[in-house]
């Protein structure tokens, strides 16, 4: 029930439009009822050979009117209801997006737990809610209107007939669908389970076909799938039995209602309580009214599916909203507990006070970042990921953060961009505590390149402009040139207007990373933040990318997060992370000249490996 109410919130703003659509649908069916009713009356009246044709004039006009109006109502109903469908779709989408956008941890949830499949299903579920009106709400609503209207009309002639009609109308429109839904639920549940079981086994088998083939497991897998399919067919057979019984019952009760009406009407005609001339008309009205009930079984089915989709979406969205938003997004306030940095505290550069933030786009000049003993955990129940990290970044300085996977490198990235928050220590950005700054402002200070950067399925230019919406063509060219990707872009058939394909499929990994670099450079933010930008690139491509990188960032402050030790000769400071702690920091030269530094050992290991015979 709560799910139903929850679903209704999406149509509430359009309730008048919805009533209009339902009203038109009702009128379309009513027109047919009217057509058949007046036709029946017409021939019955004519059969009595009235003295003048004028007496038939009203039913003849009625027949014509209803004949034409039905199509017009139907046409209008289609337009209004399709329009409504699009409105609902827009609302559901915006709601869903809004929900997961508001929490940064939601993003993580979708990225990590939500493999592409889960995501795709969530989006499909969201889309399926668009049928809320057309398939779920409209049929019962219209049937209700039609039923009430017909009962009232029939009751004018014979109360008893009206009662019988109401009984059969409720049986076909509510009782039979309800019973089949109830009976089918068990079979349906089993079917859904078996089907998703089959689907995931098939998906797994196709993704792992190489392994299956090499392990000689292909035939066994086909046998297992075939068995599952047989079970599925067995479960579905029960479903079709229930469904066809429902169809039979529908046909039976619809026609028996006419039969029962006859049974009631015949004695009444004999007693002259009902005029004989009215009988054909009443019978036609009864028959035609049942048109309204026809889509109900499908609507019950659709309701079931829609509710299931709603449940899944709510679950996912609920999961998201339970997590605490990372940054509070409040106005910047100076934190009195953490003393403001003085010029003397930071040897490498002067501190400029942060200008009061007027717009999201203002920048710190010059950039200064100072992390002191920062501790981060993703969940209170989990151990800290960062357990005391200190890092200073002066204007124009290049800091490399190295460490093995799981040492907490990417957490620094997430934290700086407000994708997660720290619970101890302090991060000063230009003299302000990071968590007190509006998250939009913070993000404007960074230009980021992530591992496996995401490109949207739009043109290259639009992908770049993401970083700076109003960027001119020249700016795009400059950024692309610095990232050493301009030649490639210009060689494309449509240049900057070329579509990048789904997730940048048109480009190779190295090319994608360089486009992402161009995007980050275009941003013009004071600090460049790179998280494993060469992950998954081969040696040659990696070398080329790093070459492009270091020549591109001549003036900028850079934080370069990596687990590769190649190409670090161009940085000023290396910070070595181990198990969430900063264990070493210094220039490459310093670190290598300390005989027992971890960094030196790591490099040494790499070389020993090469020469170990």
């Amino acid at each position, binding site marked *: 029930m709560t799910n139903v109410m929850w679903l209704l919130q999406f149509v509430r703003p359009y309730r008048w439009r919805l009533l209009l659509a339902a009203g038109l649908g009702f009128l379309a069916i009513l027109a047919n009822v009217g057509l058949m009713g007046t036709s029946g009356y017409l021939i019955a009246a004519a059969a009595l050979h009235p003295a003048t044709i004028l007496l038939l004039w009203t039913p003849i006009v009625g027949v014509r009117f209803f004949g034409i109006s039905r199509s017009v109502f139907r046409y209008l109903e289609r337009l209004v209801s399709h329009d409504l469908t699009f409105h609902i779709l827009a609302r559901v989408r915006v709601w869903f997006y809004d929900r997961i956008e508001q929490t940064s941890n939601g993003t993580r949830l979708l990225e990590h737990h939500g493999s592409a499949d889960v995501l795709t299903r969530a989006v499909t579920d969201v889309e399926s809610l668009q049928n809320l009106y057309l398939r779920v709400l409209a049929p019962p609503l219209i049937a209700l209107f039609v039923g009430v209207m017909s009962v009232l009309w029939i009751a004018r002639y014979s109360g008893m007939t009206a009662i019988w009609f109401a009984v059969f109308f409720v049986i076909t429109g509510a009782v039979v669908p309800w019973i089949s839904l109830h009976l089918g639920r068990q079979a349906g549940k089993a079917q859904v389970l078996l089907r998703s079981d089959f689907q995931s086994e098939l998906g797994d088998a196709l993704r792992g076909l190489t392994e299956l083939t090499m392990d000689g497991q292909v035939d066994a897998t086909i046998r297992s799938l075939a068995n599952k399919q047989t079970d599925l067919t067995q479960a579905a057979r029960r479903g079709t039995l229930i469904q066809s019984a429902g169809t039979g019952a529908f046909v039976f009760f619809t026609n028996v209602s006419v039969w029962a009406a006859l049974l009631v009407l*015949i004695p009444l005609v004999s007693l002259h309580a009902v005029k004989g001339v009215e009988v054909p008309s009443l019978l036609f009205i009864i028959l035609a009214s049942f048109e309204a009930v026809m889509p109900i079984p499908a609507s019950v089915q659709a309701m079931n599916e829609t509710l299931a989709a709603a449940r899944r979406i709510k679950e996912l969205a609920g999961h998201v909203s339970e997590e605490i938003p990372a940054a509070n997004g409040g106005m910047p306030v100076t934190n009195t507990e953490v003393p403001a940095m003085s010029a003397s505290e930071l040897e490498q550069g002067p501190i400029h006070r942060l200008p009061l933030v007027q717009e999201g786009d203002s920048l710190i000049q010059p950039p200064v970042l100072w992390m002191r003993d920062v501790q981060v955990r993703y969940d209170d129940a989990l151990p800290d990921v960062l357990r005391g990290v200190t890092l200073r970044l002066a204007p124009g300085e290049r800091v490399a953060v190295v460490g093995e996977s799981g040492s907490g490198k990417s957490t620094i990235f997430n934290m700086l961009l407000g994708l997660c928050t720290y619970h101890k220590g302090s991060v000063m950005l230009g003299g302000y505590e990071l968590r007190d700054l509006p998250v939009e402002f913070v993000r404007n200070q960074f230009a980021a390149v992530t591992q496996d950067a995401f490109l949207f399925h739009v043109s290259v230019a639009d992908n770049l402009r993401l970083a700076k919406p109003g960027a001119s063509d020249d700016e795009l060219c400059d950024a692309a040139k610095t990232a050493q990707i301009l030649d490639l872009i210009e060689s494309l058939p449509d240049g900057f207007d070329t579509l990048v394909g789904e997730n940048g499929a048109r480009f190779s990994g190295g090319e994608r990373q360089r486009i992402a670099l161009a995007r980050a450079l275009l941003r013009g933010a004071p600090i460049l933040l790179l998280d494993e930008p060469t992950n998954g690139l081969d040696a040659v491509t990696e070398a080329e990318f790093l070459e492009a990188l270091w020549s591109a960032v001549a003036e900028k402050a850079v934080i370069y997060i990596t687990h590769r030790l190649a190409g670090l000769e161009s940085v000023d400071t290396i910070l070595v992370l181990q198990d969430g702690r900063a264990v070493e920091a210094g220039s490459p030269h310093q670190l290598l000249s300390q005989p027992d530094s971890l960094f030196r050992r790591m490099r040494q290991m790499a070389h020993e490996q*090469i020469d170990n015979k």
Partner: protein
Amino acid sequence: MNTKEWFRRIPNLIPGLTTVVVLNFASGLLMILQAVFLAKIVTDVFLNDRNRGDVMMPIALLFFVILLRAVATGLSDKASGDVSLRIREDLRMSLVRHLFQLGPVYLRRERTGELVNSAMNGIEQVDVYATKYLPQMAHAFLIPVAVWCLVIGTDIWSAIILAVTAPLIPIFMILIGKGADSIAKRQWRALSVLGGHFLDVIRGLTTLKVFNRSRAQVEIIERITDTYREATMQSLRVAFLSALVLELLTTLSTAVVAVMLGLRLLHGNIDFHRAFLVLLLAPEFYLPIRMIGTQFHASMNGIEAAKRIFEILDTQPLVQGGTRRIVEVIQSQTGEADDHNARVSCFEHESPISIEFDDVSFAYPGSEVNALEHVSFCVPAGKTVAIVGASGAGKSSLFDLLLGFARPLQGQIRINGVALSEFELSDWRAHVSYVSQTTHLFPGTILENICRARQGASVAEALEAARLALVDEFVCRLPHGYTTRIGEDVQLSGGQIQRIAMARAILKRAPVACFDEPTSQLDMVSEQALQASLETALQGRTALVAAHRMQTVRRAHQIVVVESGRIVEQGTHADLVSAGGTYQKLWAFYNDGAIFDTAAREFVPEGARV
């Protein structure tokens, strides 16, 4: 796609559908009979002043007819449901079998999600066309003909009206069909563009956030949906017009029949009984024809889905295996008479298998560019050959060919001098252990996944292999150790998966080892630690190893450098480093000797400074 194609593709469709059509027609005839009885009873009561007692017999018969009609309709529904279940099962399983036959190379080019969708939803849509639309076509012909036959015997004028309007319906139908086709396509395109955009935005949410563009998307999503709504509504306004005309045609025909009957009744040209009967039947005459429209809409998706499914079924597998077995070839070459001994020597002792690529050229289907061109090299029995080159140079193509996932366009691969194409593929693959760049792990425990590599492997053997591959290191930290369920209890990192893959390869102990970048996802420390077990796995095996990490390559007996599908250099490490070619450049980069500062240089030992 015509109907014949469907009947050819789906065996037993004709008998199944015949049952449906016959039952459906029976239900139609009962409907006519019901109208006849109803007309008789109403006439008797209304005009002939009979009371209930007089018409008891026809009323009882009417009930019986209604009951029969309901049963016939139910049965026809059941029959059509059964046909649809059979289609789902048969077509789905043949699709699945065929996909497995097409092999990894085909699957790599396709999106798995889309293929699974075809096998699940696609097939469920296909049967709507076969079991609803096709019978409806027959129904839409048979019922109107039967109704018309009765009407012409009852009232010739009404029959003429029906006969004149009926052919107009198919004409409008075709018009609507075309219209509906374009509506459906337009709407589908609009929705898929919208859906695609939405999915894209959600997937790239982190990127949007990083660039502070995520809030702006709310408005953009709203605006795009609105724009599409307006555009689509504009075209729908026109497109729905044809449906309007059709509806108008059928309701107006009924209206005209009614008015004409009324006027002729007035003049005594027809009696009430016949007029009432015709009026009862007129809507039934049009109903099945109009239903086609509804079913047509539902079956549109089915046609699209079927096209895709039939396209997959028409794709030919890349490779057809031969019949020879590895053991036989080795026996004939070594003179070992005993089958078992030959097998044991193969798996337990030094590998007796040698591999030869002889002038092999290859292109992936649908690709203009050759992935390999005139590649020739040998892997002698028990030796290791390393393949070096940038991604896309053709390393993985070598593995695809050697594993029998694809066939050379030109040239030959020989195993102990016998062409690979002569071997039974599953037998050959049983002699190869393969570690790919992306190993897929199946749902189940870590131990189960390792054990899959060799049927009949004991748990002790599997654990030993896991220990060698350093799987122990992270498994001991997992909640349930080796019985931790992958995907449910824990998400493994790329490096951890590669260690499991290595354990699988060690467990399989196959004479031939094909390792495609086996350590690419590992960090430096783990990679170095794994080096020893890699050595173990390669010991005495005939091995082909691709790597872009130089340390893996260094110890190979022979190094083959590929660039754009061609072999550019070939030789030992020492040969190639002194040759000053591509290999030397790669070596220098990884060595860092040339580019790192002097402090580093002292740690570069002798061999590397050549």
